[in-house]
């Protein structure tokens, strides 16, 4: 599954991906290949990869390999999925605390497809913040304590 999905190993590669993907949603999954939840997410990604090929580009990023981005994106739970569009970060309101990334996995493929599509549509219309179509009950409930707010 995750064997066949494209991966980014260095900061440069991630930069490259962010900068060069044009007019498509850039999906960066931050996690580890060996983690079980990440594996579930990878499964879903691999199944929907072809369907979303016109709308998005999906990459897997290992959190251990790019600590800069792990810090910058403030990733503390994996898998975390960050969305970009034309070099711009897309925020999505999932009904949770963190709008900057999607934490956890999806219950089914359709959720993921819907989410990517909603982000794509919003971005095409010029919106930087989009409302998530996924039912909050299906999402992983987590709790984080933030510092310096």
């Amino acid at each position, binding site marked *: 599954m995750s064997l066949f999905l494209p991966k980014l190993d260095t*900061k*440069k590669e991630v*930069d490259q991906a*962010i*900068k*060069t993907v*044009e*007019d498509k949603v850039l999906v960066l999954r931050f996690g580890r290949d060996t983690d079980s939840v990440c594996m579930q997410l990878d499964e879903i990604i691999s199944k929907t990869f072809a369907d979303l090929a016109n709308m998005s580009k999906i990459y897997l990023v290992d959190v251990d390999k790019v600590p*800069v981005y792990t*810090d*910058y*994106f*403030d990733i503390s739970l994996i898998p975390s999925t*960050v969305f*970009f*569009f*034309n*070099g*711009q*970060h*897309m*925020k999505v309101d999932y009904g949770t*605390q*963190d*709008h*900057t990334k999607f934490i956890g996995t999806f219950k089914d493929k359709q959720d993921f497809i819907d989410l990517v599509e909603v982000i794509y549509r*919003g*971005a*095409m*219309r*010029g*919106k*930087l913040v989009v409302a998530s179509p996924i039912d909050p009950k299906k999402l992983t409930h987590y709790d984080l304590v*933030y510092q310096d*707010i």
Partner: protein
Amino acid sequence: MDDDFYCHVCHRSDERGRKHVYTKKHKERVNAALRKFEAKMQPAKQCVLSGPTILKCDPPEVVDKFWCPFCLAEVKKHERLGQIIAHFKSWAEHLCSEEHHKRVHEFFWTNKLDMKKRDKYKLNQEKLESLEDKSKKNLDKFTEDSLQAIKEEASRIREVEKRRSVLQAGSSAQSKPGSEIDSFDSELCSLEGDGKRIPASVTIVGGRAIHHSNPVRNTVNPHPYDGSTRYHPGREMNSSNANIVQNKIRHDTLSSSTPHTMRHDWNLSSEERNISHGPPPWAGTSYKDLCDTPGPSVMGVTDSSSYRPVRQVYRTDNRLSPESSNSSHTNIQRDQRASTSSSRLSVVNQDKASSSVSSGPGSFQPEIDPLLKVKTARVISSGGLTVISRKKSNLRGNVHTGSVPPWLQEEGGSHDDTPTVVIGPTAEDLQKHLENERKRKLNPKRVGANFDHSSETPDEWLPSFGRVWNHGPRWRSRKQYKKEVDGKLKKGNR
């Protein structure tokens, strides 16, 4: 009964019967019809006043009849006497006729119009007689005038004829077979009166001699063997648009000495012509002869009935296949023996073979291929255009000889140029262009529309990431992050 009512003005039947004439629409139509009719009255009145004008031929009109709404009939406009037409005579006659008057009266009565205005739509009957007289007078005058014109024309032609005969009589003693062309040429040279001495070209197409001012262009190629232009009987010109000069004319000029009438399209005044030389080649032939007897001497000429100012191309077709060229050469040999060679025409084919052959008439050297040497030697007359001088670089041959074109030739000099000069857009450019086209169709307000994808970023670049803020722009997150990083480093250093 009322169903039978049909109004010819409105072109419809009306169930109301006679009450139809009181309707608004009908009245409008009647007025319109009367107005139109008044317009038609005009030429008739003119005709009656001063008599019908006599015309030589049909006037340019689509229909030669007028519709009379009173009589409900088409009436011819003009009266025809053979070819001649009396303009609007029949129409005027109709308007004077009693029948028409009656109908006008009826029309006014049925349509409840003002009876006093009837006179506008008819002409007096007395005028009929006067019309006849006047028309006769006009006709007589017309015939007189035309006769006069014919007489004048005839006298003019006779004059020209006389001059010609004088000329021919005067110069018939001097004319030689060989100098035919000299005289021809000089005649042509002198005939153009604008001081440039551009020889006018003469073309004989379909039996009519055309003298016009288009000069002979470069491609005049004379006979390859003696450098003179000859009219070759029985030689078919293979090049398209070849205008073939008739040999018959030449022979005629030699044989006949009596002048014939000749119709010209040009003005040859005797002052312009150099009378000391021989007459032009066509002088001995009559125009009629040329027209009526195309004969076997006209070879391959399209019979055109219009005067086409075509340039004369004295061209011997050099593109013949070797076999046919051989046969034509033998033909030429035969002709050559028949004629003497001195020619003053200065267009010379730089055909080395020809020069060698001309030196020895009758000898034929098959080794030197005459095809290699076809090119323009000199320009006699440029016709006002700029003449280009070309240096002798005819080594490789040219279009006429069918050599390899320069763009297909392998040259040593091309290696100096840049190796592959791409002309036009490359495949990448095309792809880029297509991409741009696609992007133009996207929403310009989309996120990151003006994001520069191709700019170089340093290693420390971080994307715009909106951290978990409640307020503040996203670039703050970057700054914040950098601050944190620096803070950590400093802490680490400490």
